[in-house]
């Protein structure tokens, strides 16, 4: 089965090399998302609003960890840094600062934090990197506590301008953000850069022997990831209107991002985004709203399902689905 993608250069053709069943499913899903506020309840829509943020976070995680295999367990550090930067600017400097100032500065904060921990740790392999990223969140949480005179500790800071209180409007904001982020990251992923990152996951030494500086590429991916997380973090701050360790710099959140990406299908950008929508639907719509399961059990149940899904489809539920649609008779599709 010859592919009509050119290997030399830009591979967008490959990304959209879809067959009829895949196209149908994609269009239906897109339409469903676009019209969601019109057919879903208010609470359902509300969940899908912040699912959009999580889709951004999952995609941001995927571009570094899903592609290179360097599993970051502390990605909420990046989004949280941006959120806290916004809060600090608004609360401590000037409540009327323009978004054109706060957004770049906040994203800069995310990038700076990312580099502080990313630069030294990306030259480590495997679990060392993961361990370091995990502790980076702990460090940030401690700093927030130590400097609680400024950060107000676990109570957090409020007074951030909420973009809108209308659920439907915000839904389209986050959907739009997710779509833009997704588009950019898909382009990166399907380019040479993405190929290099995936190859690093397969065998880093071989990529070095291709004359490619793997550390440089890992840092680049981390940078792209930090910027993505920064965008998400800033918008999240403007969604909640306040910023606290619980909603912005949480260890549990870092781990949930990994689950979303893994369930969706690491390395595909779109898979993790779909995974975000799926898991939040399960946790907050199905389990909470529709089935009324208590919060303690809900959490265990969600994680149990995550494990089952991962064992059943290690490549990711949505990647498996996409490949199956591409070649229902089996033999493996080139998703």
């Amino acid at each position, binding site marked *: *089965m*010859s*592919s009509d993608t*050119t*290997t*030399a*250069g*830009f591979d967008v053709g490959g990304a959209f090399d879809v067959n009829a069943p895949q196209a149908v499913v994609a269009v239906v899903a897109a339409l469903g998302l676009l019209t969601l506020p019109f057919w879903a309840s208010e609470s359902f829509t509300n969940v899908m609003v912040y699912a959009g943020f999580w889709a951004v976070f999952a995609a941001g995680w995927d571009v570094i960890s899903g592609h290179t295999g360097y599993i970051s367990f502390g990605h909420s550090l990046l989004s949280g840094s941006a959120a806290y930067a916004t809060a600090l600017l608004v609360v401590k400097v000037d409540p009327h600062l323009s978004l054109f100032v706060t957004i770049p500065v906040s994203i800069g904060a995310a990038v700076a934090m990312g580099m502080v921990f990313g630069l030294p740790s990306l030259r480590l392999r495997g679990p060392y990197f993961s361990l370091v990223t995990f502790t980076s969140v702990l460090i940030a949480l401690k700093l927030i506590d130590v400097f609680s005179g400024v950060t107000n500790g676990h109570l957090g800071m409020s007074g951030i301008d909420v973009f809108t209180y209308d659920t439907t409007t915000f839904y389209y904001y986050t959907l739009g953000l997710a779509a833009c982020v997704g588009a950019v990251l898909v*382009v*990166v992923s399907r*380019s*040479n*850069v993405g*190929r*290099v990152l*995936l*190859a690093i996951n*397969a*065998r880093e*030494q*071989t*990529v*070095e*022997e*291709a*004359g*490619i*500086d*793997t550390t*440089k*590429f890992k840092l*680049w991916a981390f940078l792209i990831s930090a910027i993505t997380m920064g965008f998400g973090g800033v918008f999240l701050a403007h969604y909640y209107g306040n910023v606290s360790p619980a909603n912005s710099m949480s260890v549990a959140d870092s781990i949930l991002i990994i689950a979303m990406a893994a369930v969706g299908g690491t390395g595909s950008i779109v898979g993790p985004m779909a995974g975000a929508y799926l898991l939040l639907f399960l946790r907050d719509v199905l389990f909470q709203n529709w089935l009324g399961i208590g919060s303690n059990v809900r959490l265990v149940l969600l994680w149990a399902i995550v494990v089952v899904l991962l064992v059943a489809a290690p490549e990711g539920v949505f990647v498996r689905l996409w490949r199956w649609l591409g070649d229902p008779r089996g033999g493996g599709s080139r998703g």
Partner: protein
Amino acid sequence: MAESGGLLAVDGLTKRFGGLVAVDDLSFTVERGEILGVIGPNGAGKSTVFNCVVGQYDVTDGRVTFADDDVTDWDTHDIVNAGLARVSQHSRPFDAMTVRENIHLFTVPNSVLAFRGGASDEAVGDIAALVGIDDALDERPPDLTHEYTRRLEIARALATDPELLLLDEPFAGFTQEEVRDLRASIETINDDGTALVVVDHNMRGLMALVDRVVVVHDGALLTSGTPEEIADDDTVADVYLGETGDAS
């Protein structure tokens, strides 16, 4: 035995793993455009030498000079970009990519802005043709024969446009006919100006191919000379006692 000049100069190379000395004060050179054979029994340390040369391992002592640069402490990618490529004895193709994509990756420039770039389809096809695998460009490595997999490894290394190509046990697992074909390919590569080092654990494949031979035993240099001299050398034959096959 340090000599100046030559394309690659290994000078007093020593590699220790904890208490084990894998390479022991080894020195040799490779001249521009020549084909050098490196032989030695299994476990002699031949692969370790080249892991050090190519920057995969840090050397314990000694120096590696390539094209007048001291590359001893260089990162692998810098060494490759300077013109020294290596084909390991273990094939490690990227199974999720096609042959075409595997080769193409080795032409991608070392730049994070290289979203496009790397060799054109045609150029990739030419490289594949050089080692005779251009009829498998859209296959994936798990579906390739052993011979094609090994040739893919060579194609990838060639794609980096090397001045010197290290081949570690290229004939392993080949039939007589496949050995002949690969020898011819190697000679063509050499005719284009690329110097080669071919590692093997006996002389049979190398006799007609190489210009000079270096013999390694227990991590150290045993002797060196022309293929004929080595074939007649008794100390070399002794070292191979217990190995199957003649030293000639």
